[in-house]
């Protein structure tokens, strides 16, 4: 395989990592029944926070942590409004997108264009890193990439095999039954939403530091929405989510590479691909494997213990 493809695919993995991180966060939130449409805003706020922190401290890991904190604050806000006050989740999510976009654009004015000197260190996995083709693509990446992959596996194990994971899944499917069984529904919804925000923040931070290598207004340009679509395309399964993130990372990477080559491929068609792809995958999944593409039964609905009058 010639160098062009190896390089493109290597980039694809990097490009797919923020999608995977934000997607996993959203998957956790949706598993407990919270539809967080504010991912884009949380990624932006995470991106600007991380980038600014990197400029100030020079330490990329502190920067990512700061991004996570910013994202989790937004997550906390979302949780309070939708779980406790039971305001409509769609409205809050959209508002948080605006808030995140506005705050980050405003706060990021002074740092726009300033380059960050550091970059994430590439670590080769001993043995695997030396494999032809696959080596440079998958096994000579930085720790955030490995972290995203490991996180995917961890989330899968967590949800499927642990008692707390079971509690999460029950909360999203039938909070009334979960409540009756003693599961702390409110606490779980809070924690999952905050975690979702934190991961979106990290995703945004990594995007600005490792993918775009810059901060600019609205820099994530819709990645948050793509992450949302990924969660659904993967039918809420973490391992599939990782695979799809890689795929979409390839799409992104191709776009840049083709531009660099000077070809004239219509970019809008390329931009449509993730969404059409999702719908097709969902349709296939439903028709062929009888999977219901609806997600947790109570996704998007608030839980009110006294609801039944």
């Amino acid at each position, binding site marked *: 395989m010639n160098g062009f493809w190896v390089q493109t695919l290597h980039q694809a993995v990097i490009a797919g990592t923020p999608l995977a991180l934000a997607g996993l966060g959203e998957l956790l939130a949706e598993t407990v029944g919270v539809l967080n449409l504010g991912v884009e805003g949380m990624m932006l706020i995470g991106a600007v926070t991380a980038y600014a922190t990197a400029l100030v401290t020079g330490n990329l890991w502190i920067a990512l942590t700061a991004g996570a904190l910013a994202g989790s604050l937004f997550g906390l806000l979302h949780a309070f409004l939708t779980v406790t006050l039971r305001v409509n989740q769609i409205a809050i999510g959209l508002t948080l997108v605006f808030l995140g976009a506005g705050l980050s654009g405003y706060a990021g004015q002074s740092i726009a264009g300033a380059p960050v000197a550091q970059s994430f260190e590439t670590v080769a996995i001993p043995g695997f890193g030396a494999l032809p083709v696959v080596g440079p693509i998958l096994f000579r990446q930085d720790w955030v990439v490995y972290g995203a992959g490991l996180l995917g596996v961890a989330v899968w194990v967590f949800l499927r095999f642990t008692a707390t994971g079971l509690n999460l899944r029950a909360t999203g499917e*039938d909070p009334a039954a*979960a409540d009756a*069984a003693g*599961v702390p529904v409110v606490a779980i919804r809070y924690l999952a939403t905050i975690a979702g925000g934190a991961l979106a923040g990290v995703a945004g931070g990594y995007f600005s530091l490792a993918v775009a290598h810059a901060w600019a207004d609205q820099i994530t340009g819709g990645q948050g929405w793509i992450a949302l679509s990924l969660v659904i395309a993967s039918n809420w399964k973490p391992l599939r989510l990782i695979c799809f993130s890689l795929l979409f990372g390839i799409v992104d990477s191709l776009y840049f590479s083709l531009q660099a080559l000077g070809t004239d491929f219509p970019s809008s068609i390329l931009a449509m691909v993730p969404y059409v792809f999702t719908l097709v995958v969902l349709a296939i999944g439903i028709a062929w494997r009888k999977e219901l593409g609806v997600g947790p*039964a109570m996704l998007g609905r608030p839980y009110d213990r006294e609801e039944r009058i």
Partner: protein
Amino acid sequence: MVAGKAPSAPAAVEALGVTKVFNGRPANLDVYFHAFAGEIHTVLGENGAGKSTLTSMLAGVYRPDSGEVRVRGRKIAFHSPRDALRAGVGVVYQEFHLVENLTVLENALLGTGMRPWGRKRDAVGDQARQAGFDLPLSAPVRLLNIGHRQQVEILKLLLRDPDVLIFDEPTAVLGEAQVGELFATLDRLRRRGKAIVLITHRLREVRMVADRLTVLREGRTTAAGRRPAEFTDAALTELMVGPGTGAPARTREPAAMGEIVLRLVGVHLSSRSGSGLRGVDLAVAAGELVGVAGVRGNGQREIAEVAAGLAPPGRGRVEHAGGDVSFIPEDRLGMGLCRRMTIGQNLALRCYRKPPIGRPWQIDRAALQSLAERQIARYGIPARADRIVTQLSGGGLQRVVVARELDQRARLIVAAQPTRGLDIRSAEFVRRRLVEAAERGVGVLVISEDLDELMAMTDRIVVLYEGCVAADVPRSDFDRQYLGTLMLGARNDRHAS
């Protein structure tokens, strides 16, 4: 108070002189109850006798106003069901709390803090086998039939290792064969030394499975801890229902009857929360007031919906003589009314699409207002037409529904539990209106758990038991004892001993 066997060990769970009052009405009055390990103890009673209140106190849902609850001889004050579970007392309710999309294993382990795989999975499998269940642990619950779902609920309880298991009308939702399986399970549990408390109203089940029984009537114990063999069915019925008084005073004259306005032929309809209908034949003529009696869960809800034309039967035929059907549903606020609308709008729900109120591009507000005022006056609705309907109490809500439905001038009225929860005046009012409708030549079908009410108003009573018509009794044969026995499923031979 306790006859029969002398206790060699303290009761697994007992209630000593407990009293519980709700809104001034005593649900349990000085009740004594003892259940021992290794026995099945049934609690018998009609609707409203206080069975559920008693078991709720044993299970920690309510605290008794006076008297005490003891577990293994020690006085306990439960603050929540979780306390009761920890003390070893658990309940299997009629309404299941299962998460449809999770597997049997996951549902069983939910909330227990145990991991749904590996050794814990095997432990669950063992428990299920010991109880005699053949459950597919990896199947999602939504694929299970109702008998298996109940088994999952029981399994949930068993995993918490209780000493006392309380079952609230468990056979209500089961078919014949499944009842047999359930009782086999109960027998196994009894042999393992558990104390089983079984709430039921079906005498046949008592004969099948009970070691001892306690009978409640209107909150008091009429028999405590006795052996079933000590009583005939008639005697038990009397304990549950009160002494027979024969036919009550008439409150209406029989009217001339016209053609058949409603006919059910061989109707089957399955149900999630009761027996459903299992082959019902029924006919109502114009001018006839027919009552459907029975304890809740024997097909009442389904017969109402089929008769009103809301649910097509699974098998069999329903024939209406044409025209609209007026339906007074059991669920006033959820089905019969629109919560967000005003009283006036609710009164017009059947006719807002037609003139004079409904024109294609406008609702004639004046017409609607005058209709509303007319009905408010005639039916004694205690509020103005522009108020939101949820402001009304039960009596007021029912008056709105009755006003609207009766105004339709349909040839058939179906009324499901029309006086449940109403104050005395409103209840009287509703009954009077239904009787008047019958006297006007309308066919009326009233489904009610209140036997006295049915005996007073109707020309005929059809008793539903386990989804079938146990008997079709003309007014001349009305007898409280007899009807009560039919409702409880005892043999319908009046001279049974």
